[in-house]
C-alpha cells in the first residue's frame, strides 16, 4: 500500500546518498522548529495579555484596598464616592452604569430584533443587500462621534420634548439612548445571523400547515434561533456596560447616587476616563482606585461574554 507510506515510519520516503539511507520525515529541520516556536509565541501573546490585565488590575486594586480608610465592605456597600473626603463606595458608579445600560437595552432590543426579523424574514434579497451595509456603516462609526451626537443632538432633542427644567444638560437618558443606537447594529446583525441559520424546511412546514408569515416568524423561526438571539442580547449588554466615550461626554462628571435618568451621573467607565485624563500622580489613591473599578468592570463584562458563549453552546438547536 504505497498511499499509506507516510503513516508507517518504516516505509517513509527515503533517499539514498553517501553512505546509507536517510529517512526524510525524521530529518531534523531546525528552521521549521524555530518558525513553529515563533508562531506559538504569537499565540501565547494573547495569554500574556489576559495575565497582564488580571495581574496589573489586581495589583493596583490590592494597593487601593490596603490604603487607610478603604475597606472592601465600604467599597461594595456605601452609596457615596467622594475620594476627596475618603468615601469610596462603588454604588453611585454602578447604578449609573446599570441605568445607561438598561436604557440602551430598551432602545436596542426592540429595534435590533425587529430589524433582524425584517431583514431575515421579510426583506427581498435586493433590499437586504442595501440595508445591511448601511447598518454596518453605522457600526463602524467611532464612539466619540456618537458622544458628540448625544451631546449636540439627543440632549437638545430631549430637552425640547420634556422641557429644560426637567432635564439637565448632562443626563443618563441621552447617553443611554445613544449607547442603544450604537448597539442596534450589533444586536441586529448577530440576531439576523442566527435567524438566517434556521433551515428553510422549518418555515416551509409552518407555511404548509397554514401559518401566516408573521406566525411562522414569531412562533417557529424566532424560537428556533432563540439561543443565538439571547447570546446577542448578552453581548450587547456587555458592550453597553463597557462603552466609554458616549457616557464620558454626555452623562456628566461627578458620581451621583440617583435613579433619575434626567439627572447627570457618572458611570464606571466615565469616571476612569475623567480621572486618568487629568493630571494623575502614580501611586495616589485616585490612581489606584480606578484600577479597582476597572477590575470590577473587567469581571462584569467577562462573565457576560462567557455567559453568552455558554448559552450558544448549551441551548443551540442543531438541525440536520
Amino acid at each position, binding site marked *: 500500500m504505497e498511499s499509506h507510506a507516510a503513516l508507517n515510519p518504516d516505509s517513509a*520516503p527515503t533517499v539514498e546518498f553517501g553512505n546509507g539511507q536517510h529517512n*526524510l520525515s525524521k530529518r531534523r529541520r531546525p*528552521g*521549521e522548529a524555530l518558525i*513553529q516556536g515563533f*508562531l506559538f*509565541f*504569537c*499565540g*501565547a*501573546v*494573547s*495569554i500574556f*495579555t*489576559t495575565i*497582564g*490585565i488580571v495581574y*496589573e*488590575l489586581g495589583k*493596583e486594586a490590592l494597593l487601593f484596598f490596603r490604603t487607610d480608610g478603604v475597606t472592601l465592605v465600604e467599597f461594595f456597600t456605601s452609596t457615596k464616592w467622594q475620594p476627596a473626603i475618603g468615601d469610596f463606595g462603588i454604588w453611585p458608579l454602578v447604578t449609573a452604569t446599570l441605568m445607561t445600560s438598561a436604557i440602551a437595552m430598551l432602545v436596542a432590543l426592540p429595534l*435590533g430584533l*425587529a*430589524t433582524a426579523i*425584517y431583514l431575515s424574514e*421579510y426583506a427581498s434579497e435586493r433590499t437586504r443587500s442595501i*440595508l445591511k451595509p*448601511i*447598518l454596518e*456603516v*453605522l457600526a*463602524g*462609526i*467611532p464612539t*466619540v*462621534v456618537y*458622544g*458628540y*451626537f448625544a451631546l*449636540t*443632538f439627543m440632549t437638545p432633542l430631549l430637552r425640547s420634548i420634556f422641557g429644560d427644567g426637567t432635564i439637565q444638560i448632562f443626563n443618563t437618558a441621552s447617553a443611554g439612548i445613544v449607547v442603544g443606537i450604537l448597539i*442596534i447594529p450589533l444586536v441586529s446583525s448577530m440576531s439576523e445571523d442566527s435567524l438566517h441559520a434556521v433551515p428553510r424546511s422549518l418555515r416551509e412546514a409552518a407555511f404548509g400547515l397554514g401559518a*401566516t408569515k*408573521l*406566525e411562522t416568524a414569531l412562533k417557529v423561526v424566532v424560537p428556533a434561533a432563540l439561543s443565538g438571539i439571547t447570546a446577542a442580547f448578552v453581548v450587547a449588554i456587555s458592550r453597553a*456596560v463597557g462603552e*466609554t*466615550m458616549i457616557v*464620558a*461626554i454626555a452623562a456628566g462628571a461627578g458620581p451621583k447616587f440617583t435613579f433619575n435618568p434626567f439627572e447627570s451621573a457618572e458611570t464606571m*467607565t466615565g469616571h*476612569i*476616563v475623567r480621572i*486618568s*485624563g487629568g493630571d494623575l500622580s502614580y501611586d495616589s489613591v485616585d490612581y489606584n482606585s480606578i*484600577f479597582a473599578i*476597572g477590575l470590577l*468592570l*473587567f469581571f462584569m*463584562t467577562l462573565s457576560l*461574554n462567557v455567559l453568552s458563549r455558554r448559552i450558544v453552546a448549551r441551548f443551540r438547536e442543531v438541525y440536520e
Partner: protein
Amino acid sequence: MKANKNYYPEGDALLAQINGRHRRGTIWRTLFLTATIIAILVLMALLYNVFNQAFGLVAVQNKIDPTTLTTDGVLLEDLPKEQLVDVLAGHISTGLGRRLEREQLFFDTSTVFEDPALFNELCASAEPPAACALPARSQEDVYQLVLTRVVEPEVIKTWSLVDSILHRSDVLMEAEQAFPEAVIEFRSWLTPSFITNPQSSEPELAGVRTAIFGSLWVIAITIMFSFPIGVGAAIYLEEYAQQENRLNRLIQTNINNLAGVPSIIYGMLGLAIFVRVLEGFTSGAVFGLVSDTTTANGRTILSAGLTLGLLILPIIIINAQEAIRAVPSSLRQASFGLGATKWQTIWHHVLPNALPGILTGTILSMSRAIGETAPLVVVGASTFITVDPSGPFSKFTALPIQIYQWTSRPQDEFRNIAAAAILVLLILLLTLNATAVFLRNRYSTKMT
C-alpha cells in the same frame, strides 16, 4: 371560545379569522419595517447633525473696524507693506513688535521695533534669533499679522447649517439686533487651513494637522506590532495546533474572550505596563534618544500604538483564522504530496490564498483602532500640543482625542470645529474601508 383548542371555525367565522390573522401580519410587518427605517434614520440624523454644525452662518465682530485703519476707502489688504507696518506699529506694544521682528524681519535693510545695533549684536551672538537667517516678511504676511493682532476678528455667534439656509432672514434680523457691529458671513469650518494648521486655543485658527500626524504615527506602530503577531497566532492555531490539546484550546477561548473586553481596560493595561513598567523603553531613554531624562515619560506614541495593538490583536487573529480556514485543504495536500515541508506549504500556498481575507480583516481592525478614544485618554494623550510628532517617542495627540477635547468645551465655536474634525475622521475611515474593499476585489480575482 378561542381558548378552546378543539374549536375549528367554519364558513364566515373561518374567513373572519383568516382575515384577522392577515391583518395582524400586515401590522407587524409594518412595525418591523418601521424599526429598520428608524435604525437607518438615526444614521442619517448622525450625519445631518455633523454637517449641520460644520457649516453655517457666523457673526464676526472685529475689535477694530478695518475701514478706520485706512483712508480714502482703500481696502486694508491692498495697502502697501510700508503702510501696513505703520498700522501695526501704531496698535501693538513695542515688546510684542520686537518679538515679531526677531521671528522675522519686516524690512531687509532696516528694523522697525529693534535697535539696529543691538539687533546686529544679537545676530552675531551664539544663539541668533530666527530673523537673522530669514528674508523679510511679504506684504501678505504683514497683512495677516495686522488681521490677527490689530483687527482681531472674533466669532461671537454661530448658527447651524439648516437655520442658515431655511431661516436665513430670521437669522440676519436676529443678528442685526443683537450684534449691530458684527459682519454676518457663511463659513465652512472644514477648510484647507483647518487641516494644515496646528492646534490652537483660538477656534478660528485651530487645526488638526498635529492630530492627523499623531493618529497616523500611532496607527503605523499598531499595525507593525499586531499584524505579524496576529497572523502568526492565526497560523499557529489553524495549521499547527492540535484541537484536543488543552493549552491550544485555552489560547482559542482566551482570544475569543479578549475580543469582548472593553477598550478602556486595554487603556489601563497600557498605562500600567507600557507607560509605567516599560517607561525606559517607551520613552526612548533606553536608546539614549532623550536629551533630558528627567522630563521623559512613557506617555508616548509608542505606548499608545502598542496599547491599540493589543486591543485589535484578537480581531486580527479571528479574521485571519477565518481566512486561513477558507483555504481548501486539497491545496495543502497537493503541496505535501510534492514533498514540501509544513512551513513551505504555509508560506507558498496557504498564505497567498488567505491574503485577501487577512488584509481585509486587518484594514477593518485598523479603522477600529483609528476611532478608539478611551484607551488613548487613559494612556495619556496630550490634550494641548502644537508640535508635530517627530517619532515614536514623541508626545502626541490624535484625531478622536481632539474631537473629545473640543466637544467637551462649552463654547459653540469649539462644537463647530469638533464637527469639522469628525468629518476629517470619517473621510479617513471611508478611505480606509474603500481600500479594504478594493484590495479584496483585486486580489480575490487574481488568485482564482
